[in-house]
């Protein structure tokens, strides 16, 4: 009595402390840099930073679909008006504003410092004569109605040059004065919220407001689509939430029902959950002591691995069929075998701790602590929660009978299974690297629909992500900008030689201070300009007075303070500028996205390193692929070392190397066969998620193999041990099988891998036995 009370008290204190630690010290983050190796190069770090903050998270892309296009345009205009009047947005851009949009205004008012074509001849008498002569001829053409609008302020046409350089909004199709997709089936609207994108709740309200406003419009057959970093994040979060909620309810229900049938005692069913839950809490507390920020993925994967702890209660409870012996006594019988299984699994997981990736280390730590806690909880605490002489009825007799018959015959399959394993092994070796899925895009948890909408809208708006860029790294902002200007000149040559279609550069919007000064120097004084201008106007019949705005603009530009990012604050350019020019890790980075590359080698030749500045070429897809491949290779290395260590420990525990080999053989064979099965029946390509799931499979496989070999040695334990194995297997298959119903690719993957793997473990574990299994004859 006393010891039980003491045990329970100890347990609750332990849990309380753990929860306290978690709540106070642990902070869940989504910082992907945790999955970077500790010695990552600057290039790799920038890459991850770009992946995370690919674009300003305040951007919302809106599309309105339907027919006819006039109605779609009208709906767009009305929506834009309401949104402009609301307090949520700093930018509402649908193309209507034309030259009045913030981007155009900023580019126009700074044209003299941005234009690349200004020379010392631009404002001389000869220069002005040439330009004004052309302008006069332009008045006689068909487009004069448009071109003469800017004539009084910008006769030398600098604004046009600046726009050409940008190539931005100009690329978007327009219909009825509004942005439209190229096929004219969708009108577009660009929004930038005042609220920062990291506050998902606030962003969620804004998105609801947009939807509500749209629904209030009097158009019945038009559809609204939204995308953008926060929209995607919120949609993904909601999908995962509802998916997870549905699945957890389904899985829990299935598991509970099955366990109830298996144990016919609701109390026992509840007790089954306790070791795992305690394990997860302990694991998180352990992490809380080790670090202060944990990635959500760590918890997810870690919890998956702790799924091995599902076994322990099964085995323990299956022992409870002898009336008269205390629960504790009965647990003790199989404790040695279970402990051996636990230790080998822990060794397997500890391979993760020896990697040099923070993320993997955390997963390893989490699962080890969790597993140890789970098994100890099952061994010590569960008996304290049961009455001393608790027994359970035998259940599932017909199922046991059926499967016993099958299991008895399994060893006969051994030769066939060997062949299968060898064949699968050959297939894997033959396929080599092709078995891996390296495309990061395919790994993302985004649903296909969300991705499709985002791609469509981005393409319409000419805002596609460019996978390839040249990156300038320098120690100061001005150094970076100057190097960028030199690089831009080289890239201009590449564009005219058609080596690349286009590129973007921060210096098109923000020239270096040096360049700005040079351009200002080239601008004439007011008097000199007037003299040149008026002397030319004697022969070209423009009215003098109309050029007053031109003269005052030049004068202003000559004396203006240097241009900074502030000029673009509330425009789309400000947006782009943020991810083309930024400070990182003590350096200043200028990123030049490249579009339509026709010759990679020539681009590579532009990379350089000289006096403190570096120019790097980054191919996002290639780099992330490489990063993933590095992980994988490391993971496989660790896996192999882990297997050897496991073999070692098993041999000691079982006091026989041969036994050790046999026990290890089953799970390893399962891994090989499972991989091949997944390749051909799964969504194609093995990923990190598969590997982690396989760790779980191996853990369970060792468990099954150990217990089957125990059955070989002590056949009289059939009635207690076999049901345990059965229940463990069925519970795992049911729970992870229900994951395959998820809409998230990641969960589907894990579910499929574990469910199929565990089944194979059962088959292989039973057949790869030294002594024949003699099942109880029912």
């Amino acid at each position: 009595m006393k010891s039980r009370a003491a045990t329970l008290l100890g347990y609750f204190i332990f849990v309380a402390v753990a929860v306290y630690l978690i709540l106070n010290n642990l902070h869940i983050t989504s910082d992907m840099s945790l999955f970077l190796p500790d010695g990552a190069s600057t290039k790799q770090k920038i890459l991850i930073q770009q992946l995370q903050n690919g674009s300003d998270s305040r951007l919302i892309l809106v599309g309105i679909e339907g027919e006819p296009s006039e109605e779609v345009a009208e709906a767009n205009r009305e929506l834009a008006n309401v949104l402009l009047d609301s307090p949520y947005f700093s930018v509402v851009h649908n193309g209507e504003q034309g030259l009045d949009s913030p981007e155009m205004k900023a580019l126009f008012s700074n044209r003299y410092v941005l234009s690349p074509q200004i020379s010392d001849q631009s404002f001389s008498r000869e220069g002005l004569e040439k330009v004004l002569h052309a302008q006069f001829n332009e008045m006689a053409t068909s487009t004069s109605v448009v071109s003469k609008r800017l004539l009084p302020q910008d006769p030398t046409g600098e604004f046009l040059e600046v726009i050409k350089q940008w190539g931005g909004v100009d690329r978007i199709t327009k219909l009825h004065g509004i942005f439209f997709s190229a096929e004219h089936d969708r009108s577009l609207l660009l929004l930038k919220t005042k609220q920062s994108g990291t506050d998902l709740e606030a962003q969620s309200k804004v998105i609801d407001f947009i939807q509500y406003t749209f629904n209030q419009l009097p158009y019945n057959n038009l559809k609204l689509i939204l995308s953008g970093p926060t929209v995607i994040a919120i949609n993904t979060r909601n999908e995962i939430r509802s998916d997870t909620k549905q699945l957890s309810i389904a899985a829990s229900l299935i598991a509970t029902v099955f366990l109830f049938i298996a144990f016919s005692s609701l109390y026992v069913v509840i007790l089954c959950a306790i070791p795992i839950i305690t394990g997860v809490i302990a694991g998180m507390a352990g992490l809380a002591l080790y670090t202060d920020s944990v990635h959500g993925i760590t918890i997810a994967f870690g919890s998956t691995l702790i799924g091995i702890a599902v076994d322990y209660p099964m085995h323990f409870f299956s022992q409870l069929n002898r009336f008269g012996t205390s629960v504790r006594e009965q647990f003790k019988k199989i404790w040695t075998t279970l402990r051996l299984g636990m230790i080998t699994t822990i060794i397997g997981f500890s391979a993760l701790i020896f990697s040099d990736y923070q993320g993997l280390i955390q997963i390893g730590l989490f699962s080890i602590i969790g597993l140890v806690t789970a098994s100890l909880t099952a061994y010590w605490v569960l008996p304290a929660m049961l009455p001393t002489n608790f027994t359970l009825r035998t259940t599932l007799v017909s199922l046991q009978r059926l499967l016993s018959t099958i299991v008895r015959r399994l060893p006969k399959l051994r030769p066939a299974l060997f062949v299968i394993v060898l064949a699968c092994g050959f297939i894997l070796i033959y396929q080599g690297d092709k078995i891996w899925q390296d495309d990061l895009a395919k790994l993302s948890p985004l649903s296909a629909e969300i991705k499709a909408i985002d791609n469509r809208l981005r393409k319409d708006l000419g805002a596609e992500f460019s996978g390839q860029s040249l990156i300038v790294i320098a120690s100061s902002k001005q150094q970076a900008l100057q190097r960028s200007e030199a690089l831009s000149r080289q890239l201009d040559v590449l564009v005219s030689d058609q080596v690349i279609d286009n590129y973007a550069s921060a210096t098109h919007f923000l020239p270096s201070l040096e360049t700005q000064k040079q351009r200002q120097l080239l601008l004439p004084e007011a008097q000199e300009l007037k003299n040149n201008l008026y002397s030319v106007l004697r022969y070209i019949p423009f009215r003098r007075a109309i050029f007053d705005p031109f003269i005052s603009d030049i004068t202003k530009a000559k004396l203006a303070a240097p241009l900074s990012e502030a000029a673009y604050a509330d425009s789309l350019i400000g947006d782009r500028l943020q991810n083309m020019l930024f400070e990182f890790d003590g350096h200043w980075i200028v990123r030049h996205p490249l579009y339509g590359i026709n010759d990679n080698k020539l681009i590579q030749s532009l990379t350089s390193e000289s006096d403190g500045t570096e120019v790097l070429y980054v191919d996002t897809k290639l780099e992330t692929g490489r990063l993933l491949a590095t992980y994988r290779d490391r993971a496989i290395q660790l896996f192999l070392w882990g297997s050897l260590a496991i073999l070692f420990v098993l041999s000691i525990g079982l006091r026989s190397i041969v036994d050790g080999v046999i026990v290890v053989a089953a799970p390893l064979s399962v891994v090989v066969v499972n991989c091949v099965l997944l390749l051909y029946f799964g969504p194609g390509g093995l990923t990190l998620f598969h590997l982690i799931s396989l760790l779980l499979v191996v853990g369970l496989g060792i468990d099954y193999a150990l217990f089957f070999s125990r059955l070989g040695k002590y056949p009289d334990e059939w009635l207690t041990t076999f049901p345990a194995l059965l229940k463990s297997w069925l519970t795992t298959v049911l729970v992870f099988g229900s994951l395959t119903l998820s809409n998230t690719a990641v969960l589907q993957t894990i579910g499929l891998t574990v469910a199929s793997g565990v089944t194979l473990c059962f088959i292989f574990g039973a057949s790869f036995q030294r002594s024949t299994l003699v099942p109880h004859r029912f």
Partner: protein
Amino acid sequence: MSNPMPFICYRNVLLIVMLLLPLQPQAAEPFSLGELMHQLSLVEQSEARFTETRTSGLITKSIRIKGKLSYRAPDQLIKHSLQPVDERFEINGDTITIARTVKGKTKERKISLARYPSLSPIVLGLRATLAGDIELLRKYYTVSLEGNQYGWKLELIPHASSKSSKDLIKEIIIQGSKSEIRRVQINEANGDQSVMRITRL
């Protein structure tokens, strides 16, 4: 004795009336917009010479443009200016092709009408008039007609709703006779003006 006078007067009056009858002018046919549009729509193709005079607040002298016009129903119109600039402005459906020739070298640009809404009203206005498409015309303009089939005057005022056109164009006045357009005057909102005189070939 019977009175012979009234009989003779009555016959004379009748004679006079009968003589005068053919000399009465034809009753002016009711000339409606529909009539005019119908007449215009019958024209399959036409070629003409034009002289355009542009005046603007920006310049001290007016600009004179000379060239050729060519029309093919229902939506192909070519304006080829020869002086002072060699420019061929072709409208084909919704595509505009502008070809400028300077010193023997020709540079061509294609624009879709949808992209430059500011050009639409003028272009579509002319096209619709030539094709006699009253619906298209009314889509962008308030239309009023004066005169008769020998000398008519169409006045087109852009709708207030089409924002970009109202900014630029105040009104377009087209004058012609029967199915021949003789004069097109475009008054811009800023006071600039273009007057084109057309002679059919």
